[in-house]
């Protein structure tokens, strides 16, 4: 984490969290508006608000470069906001803002991860934004020069005052804020927002001082003269009550006479101007961090407030709080322990043989409650896939432009919920797969598509659904599909074939693209073709206990299917005994369990055992031998055989006996043991059983791999 001003360390996390969320929101709005090719007033205000909040919090944290960057972006939208109707063809604005938001994200990433964080110099981007703002202004010059003048120009005040005076049907109020509430300028800005949000059809004609968003010293002007707001609305009373109910408003008065209004406006403008010049002389567009840390608490408040109305404007109120994930993990651990301890109490051997009617009843009650508790805790950790899915919009959009392909991204089932830790790890794999679809899947030109009888516009579909403890995510395109001949030729060239090429099934060939060192694109592009993509995706997914398969039909498209567990923390397991050791095998991989006869066993040349089940031959793995355990059960007819299957590979495990099915809470191996490769032995973790003993959880993929 970057070093920040003393006392602000705790705020950095919050800052990063909030700003990242805001930037994502910004991306979302831009994508939506770009698609619809129009900015609604609401969108502009929302963007403006995001920029403003980001700017404010960056200033508070002392990240001056970010603050300036946000400020420039804000300036640009200030112009757009004043003249929304003229902004029909502003494609360059999107590019600029996307670039800016990328820079922002990169910088925040650095702040988060870099100990010796050095602020990046954004002067290039700043120049671009300034140019953008100028272009916007240039476009608007002929139409309404005065209004479009940015707040930075002192002349605007006079104009505004004149406008207020000239407009006969508007109402002007003078608002005073509570003494010592601090940051009056921000409060005034909030007040305007509040009025706009709570009253329909209100038109804010002008306000004085005008530069409340950009000039910290305007707070002093407001303290001295009050904040003067002119508006036009059918229902004046509603506006007034909105003003009254705004936070920190101490009093307000309606100034009725036009003359008086003009006079006062002028006076205020006259007073505001010198203050502005003062700051202009001081140099940077906004005061450096100095005033912000001095009053971090009051500064925090308006930020929170400015968020609230936005949340409520989007429909029903959301009552969300953000919680440190560590605390959730802790809670989760404790609940796991409670469940274990509960079993220890209820099935305590000392109770055996006793008639305990009321005890049994209470125990049942307790068990029900703890189960509820566990479910609730689990559900807290569950988050919808909306976040990572929406991010793909952006990727498709960027690549669409770069690759010159017309593609639409269709998202389905993004409300499916999975464990937070999984969602966090899903971004990279999804991004890779979507890029792959864009780059390799969809045909290079629209003509090719039309020739193949497909619509010119390609479609990439991202869908999610949950099925029995697993989430299935499909990323599919309607592109050219996988050319199996090309794939096998390439695999042969790269020495990836294990048997003669003719013996591979179509499915096997398609899944070859997931092998390490395979990339069908001969040309390395910016997005894919480095040959590290797919196998990394696959291994990342299997680290989370997930799997990746490919299904493709030549000429019709390709689908990548990801299967991931809903949660990593709890496993439905089958308990088995081997000697005096207990193991847990995840139920999801067990195909069947059975007792075999000696004559069903086939012996290969290396003393290895195999068994034939329904025409398929599976190797037999004796767990006691594998893990070096002493067991009295050595005759294959005395024990039990489990057929397990994962990633299309199957194996039979031989154990002493089955104990039963149980939901277990997965615990990682102690840190001290992480220096040894236990995972490679085919064990993914351990769990504490009801009687306090430890059961080792079998990791089927690694077990099959190590065999």
């Amino acid at each position: 984490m970057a070093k920040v001003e003393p006392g602000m360390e705790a705020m950095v996390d919050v800052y990063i969290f909030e700003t990242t969320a805001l930037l994502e929101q910004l991306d979302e709005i831009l994508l939506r508006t770009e698609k619809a090719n129009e900015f609604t007033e609401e969108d502009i205000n929302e963007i403006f608000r995001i920029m403003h909040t980001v700017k404010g919090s960056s200033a508070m944290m002392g990240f001056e470069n970010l603050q300036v960057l946000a400020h420039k972006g804000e300036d640009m939208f200030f112009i757009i906001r004043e003249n929304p109707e003229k902004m029909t063809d502003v494609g360059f604005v999107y590019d600029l803002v996307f670039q800016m938001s990328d820079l922002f994200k990169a910088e925040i990433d650095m702040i988060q991860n870099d100990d010796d964080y050095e602020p990046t110099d954004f002067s290039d981007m700043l120049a671009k934004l300034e140019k953008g703002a100028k272009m916007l202004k240039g476009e608007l010059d002929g139409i309404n020069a005065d209004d479009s003048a940015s707040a930075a120009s002192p002349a605007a005040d006079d104009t505004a005052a004149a406008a207020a005076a000239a407009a006969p049907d508007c109402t002007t109020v003078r608002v005073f804020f509570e003494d010592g509430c601090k940051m009056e300028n921000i409060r005034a800005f909030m007040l305007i927002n509040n009025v706009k949000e709570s009253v329909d059809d209100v038109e804010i004609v002008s306000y004085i001082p005008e530069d409340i968003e950009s000039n910290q010293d305007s707070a002093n002007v407001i303290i001295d003269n009050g904040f003067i707001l002119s508006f036009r609305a059918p229902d004046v009373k509603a506006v007034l009550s909105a003003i009254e109910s705004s936070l920190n408003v101490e009093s307000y008065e309606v100034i009725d006479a036009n003359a008086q209004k003009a006079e006062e406006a002028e006076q205020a403008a006259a007073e505001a101007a010198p203050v502005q010049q003062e700051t202009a002389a001081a140099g940077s567009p906004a005061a450096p961090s100095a005033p912000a840390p001095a009053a971090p608490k009051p500064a925090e408040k308006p930020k929170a407030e400015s968020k609230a109305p936005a949340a409520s404007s989007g429909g029903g109120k959301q009552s969300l709080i953000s919680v440190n994930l560590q605390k959730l993990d802790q809670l989760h651990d404790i609940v796991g322990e409670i469940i274990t301890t509960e079993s220890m109490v209820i099935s305590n051997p000392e109770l055996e043989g006793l008639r305990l009617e009321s005890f049994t009843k209470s125990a049942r009650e307790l068990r029900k409650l703890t189960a509820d508790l566990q479910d609730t805790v689990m559900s807290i950790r569950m988050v919808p896939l909306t976040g990572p899915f929406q991010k793909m919009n952006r990727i498709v959009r960027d690549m669409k432009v770069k690759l010159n392909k017309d593609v639409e991204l269709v998202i389905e089932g993004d409300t499916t919920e999975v464990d937070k830790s999984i969602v966090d790890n899903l971004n990279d794999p999804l991004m890779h797969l979507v890029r792959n679809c864009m780059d390799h899947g969809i045909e290079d030109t629209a003509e090719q598509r039309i020739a193949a009888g497909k619509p010119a516009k390609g479609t990439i579909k991202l869908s999610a659904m949950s099925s029995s403890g697993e989430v299935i995510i499909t990323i599919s395109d309607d592109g050219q599909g996988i050319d199996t001949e090309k794939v096998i030729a390439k695999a042969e060239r790269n020495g990836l074939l294990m048997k003669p090429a003719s013996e591979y099934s179509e499915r096997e060939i398609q899944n070859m693209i997931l092998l390490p060192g395979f990339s069908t694109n001969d040309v390395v592009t910016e997005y894919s073709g480095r040959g590290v993509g797919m196998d990394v995706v696959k291994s990342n997914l299997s680290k989370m206990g997930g799997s990746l398969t490919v299904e493709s039909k030549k000429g019709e498209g390709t689908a990548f299917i990801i299967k991931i567990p809903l949660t990593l923390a709890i496993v439905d397991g089958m308990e088995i005994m081997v000697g005096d050791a207990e193991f847990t095998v995840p139920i999801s991989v067990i195909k069947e369990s059975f007792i075999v006869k000696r004559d069903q066993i086939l012996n290969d040349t290396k003393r290895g055992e195999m068994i034939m089940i329904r025409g398929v031959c599976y190797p037999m793995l004796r767990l006691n031998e594998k893990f070096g355990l002493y067991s009295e059960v050595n005759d294959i007819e005395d024990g039990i055989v489990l057929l397990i299957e994962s990633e299309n590979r199957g194996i039979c495990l031989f154990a002493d006996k089955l104990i039963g099915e149980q939901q277990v809470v997965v615990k990682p191996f102690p840190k001290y043991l992480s220096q040894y490769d236990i995972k490679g032995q085919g064990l993914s973790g351990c769990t504490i059983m009801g009687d306090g003993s430890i059961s080792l959880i079998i990791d089927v993929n690694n077990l099959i791999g190590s065999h």
Partner: protein
Amino acid sequence: MDIKELFAKQEEMKQKNLNAKNEKESEITKVMTFYIGDQVYGIEIPSVIEIIGVPHITVVPGIPYYIKGIINVRSKVVPVIDMRSRFGKEEKEYTDRTNTIIIEEAGVSVGVIVDEVIGVIPVFQKNIANSPDRIGVNDNKFIKYLLEMPDGIKLVLDVAKLIYDGDMYLVEE
């Protein structure tokens, strides 16, 4: 130099001597002592979490022979090290007297199996003899310092080195 100054200096000297004496006499820490074979070893009390018998140990494959496996200490999974075999001594069957001492360093807990816990002794500066740099004994790297007590020499183990064992410094991961 006037008399006042002299007096002050004298007082200062006195105080210094007293301090030095106190330093030698004052208790630095407490050490829990135990047997491994015939030798008495010790672990500083702040590192000790608890002492238990030898519970059921779950064997884990793929780890060195001296780590016996993992145990459940109040819902925490802790690895256990047999000190006899860690120090290259012959292993012995566990008895009623065999103890597991749960120690912790920087958030990492480990159980060490010792022959028998003796008790807790206070340690003064004067008891501490410097640890020999190298006398060719294999397990020297685990010794923090020697204690010369009236009833014999005790070797105080360095818990950090015991946990962050030599060449495999990957625990942090």
